[in-house]
């Protein structure tokens, strides 16, 4: 267990000095997974044999390498959200539709991690096709929050966040379309980073809403997030939306030098409806930053109050198109009895998709359909422009923004699952960031009176993950919270 509390940097040092073998680290991790899974259900697939085989090979390779030849993730087992392809391992997207789908290739992020010596221990639970904010829409059952097993871990990357929190994952990758990395990180007391749109290749991520999706790290610390971001970032010829911008060494940003930076507090994010304890914890962290020399001003993002509505037109529209491929022809599931081709499509999709996925596909189909396109889809894209411009304007004045990640801490299982709109509103503070394509991090900033973690969000300018990480690191250091749940 002690090994599993260590940072990626520390694990790397232990491995390159040959003090710990990849098989030893893996066996610790597998033991912890076995211990925690009956309570958490954070994994859909544990690829034990494949990981053991790989660790064995790395053990043998390690003997032949000198200390400085060992790449930075050598022998470190990672877990991956189950909507990202890892070759040879099952990828379900938490859907019956893909229950037996085996990934035929590696996503670009996986390829990059593998090249640096990482191995993969399993695939984490999520809301079906990443559509949800609680991991309750998973076909494989909900994940539980390690801080309180009666509560949700958030979503959609709830399995990743719960596993990292419970130390049944060393670090994980999630995906974030409207808050799916940050909100579960906040609920589970871990760090979650959504990079700038285009910073990380989406090749091999199962597309949900292509203009919003982004892969990012979910980790125990800000340093670990920077460590992984260094490896997964960069342009990729297989994703035409990946940006041709230089990738800095993000670890160098973690120097504590926040003096002279200017922070904006958007007044629309500190309104009624935010739990007082959440507000208090975030503002307490802001005070700490002020003491370090950060200048804090109030700013306004007037149109972000339309972000959830805008998102629930754009994301389902893109989803309705992206999920058209699940037609019973190429991807494992096909209904048994049907009259003809159209009937086969309809029955396959009726049986293979859960209710939330169906709702979103139908909403998207409707808002894109003849006669309604202008009123809904085009309208939403115009509001998106206004939201984008609002951030641009704020960033003329400040270097970064601070907000709560969510208006509340982890809610109870079942509390919102019967009311789609109530569930949608749990992403009220994270969604605008995706619409504007900006980088943002969730970093723990305290606990409420129920001992549930609270997350603080730092939002940066496009491609300025360095400031985001720098500020989050300062918050983490100043607060030095104990973030290990007693599980």
């Amino acid at each position, binding site marked *: 267990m002690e090994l599993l509390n260590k940072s990626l940097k520390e694990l790397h040092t232990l491995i390159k000095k040959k003090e710990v073998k990849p098989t030893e680290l893996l066996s610790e991790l597998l033991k912890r997974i076995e211990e925690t899974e009956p309570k958490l259900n954070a994994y859909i697939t544990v690829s034990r044999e494949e990981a053991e085989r790989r660790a064995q090979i790395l053990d043998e390779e390690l003997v032949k390498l000198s200390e400085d030849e060992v790449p930075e993730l050598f022998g470190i087992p990672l877990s991956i959200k189950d909507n990202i392809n890892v070759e040879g391992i099952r990828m379900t997207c938490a859907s019956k539709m893909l229950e037996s789908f085996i990934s035929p290739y590696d996503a670009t992020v996986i390829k990059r991690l593998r090249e640096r010596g990482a191995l993969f221990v399993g695939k984490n639970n999520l809301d079906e096709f990443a559509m949800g904010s609680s991991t309750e829409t998973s076909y494989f059952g909900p994940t539980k929050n390690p801080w309180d097993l009666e509560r949700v871990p958030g979503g959609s990357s709830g399995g990743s966040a719960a596993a990292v929190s419970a130390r049944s994952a060393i670090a994980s990758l999630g995906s974030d379309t409207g808050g799916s990395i940050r909100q579960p990180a906040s609920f589970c007391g871990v760090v979650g980073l959504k990079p700038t749109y285009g910073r990380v290749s989406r090749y091999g991520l199962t597309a949900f809403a292509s203009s919003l999706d982004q892969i990012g790290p979910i980790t125990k610390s800000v340093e670990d997030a920077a460590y992984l971001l260094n490896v997964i970032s960069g342009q990729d010829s297989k994703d035409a939306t990946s940006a041709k911008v230089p990738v800095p060494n993000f670890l160098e940003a973690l120097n504590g030098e926040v003096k002279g930076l200017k922070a904006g507090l958007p007044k629309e994010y500190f309104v009624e409806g935010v739990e007082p304890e959440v507000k208090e914890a975030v503002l307490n962290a802001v005070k700490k930053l002020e003491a370090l020399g950060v200048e804090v001003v109030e700013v306004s993002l007037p*149109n972000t109050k*339309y972000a959830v509505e805008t998102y*629930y037109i754009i994301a389902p529209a893109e989803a309705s198109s992206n999920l058209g491929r699940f037609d019973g022809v190429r991807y494992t599931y096909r209904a048994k009895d049907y009259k003809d081709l159209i009937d086969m499509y309809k029955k396959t999709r009726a049986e293979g998709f859960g209710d939330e996925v169906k709702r979103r596909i139908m909403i998207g189909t*409707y808002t894109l359909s003849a006669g309604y396109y202008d009123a809904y889809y085009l309208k939403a894209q115009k509001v998106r422009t206004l939201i984008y411009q609002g951030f641009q304007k704020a960033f003329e004045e400040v270097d970064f923004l601070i907000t709560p990640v969510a208006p509340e801490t982890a809610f109870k299982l079942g509390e919102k699952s019967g009311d789609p709109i109530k569930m949608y509103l749990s992403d009220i503070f994270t969604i605008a960031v995706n619409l504007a394509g900006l980088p943002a991090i969730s970093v723990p900033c305290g606990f409420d009176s129920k001992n549930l973690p609270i997350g603080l969000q730092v939002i940066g300018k496009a491609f300025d993950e360095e400031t985001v990480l720098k500020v989050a690191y300062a918050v983490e250091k100043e607060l030095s919270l104990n973030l290990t749940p007693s599980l």
Partner: protein
Amino acid sequence: MKLSREEVLHIAHLARIELKEEEVEKFRKELSEILAFVEKLNELDTEGIDPKFSVIPPENVLREDVPQLSLPREKTFMNAPETDGEYFIVPKVVKK
């Protein structure tokens, strides 16, 4: 926007999702609520505003046309519900 039963059936048909009888009313209600919710956007005047379909500047992404291997056949078909190893097999679509 209150959807009618017929509209729900039409949307489901376009989306290629078969609905059971009891689901029609359930989705009619839920989808109507979601549409009513998103219609809040109508409060905003967007006259003269350009839509932002993507935050990425619209640029052509070009590369050299270099031949390279694509996914091999066995991997392409490994997840197919029905295949003969060379084709995906689907119900007959051409009428006699």
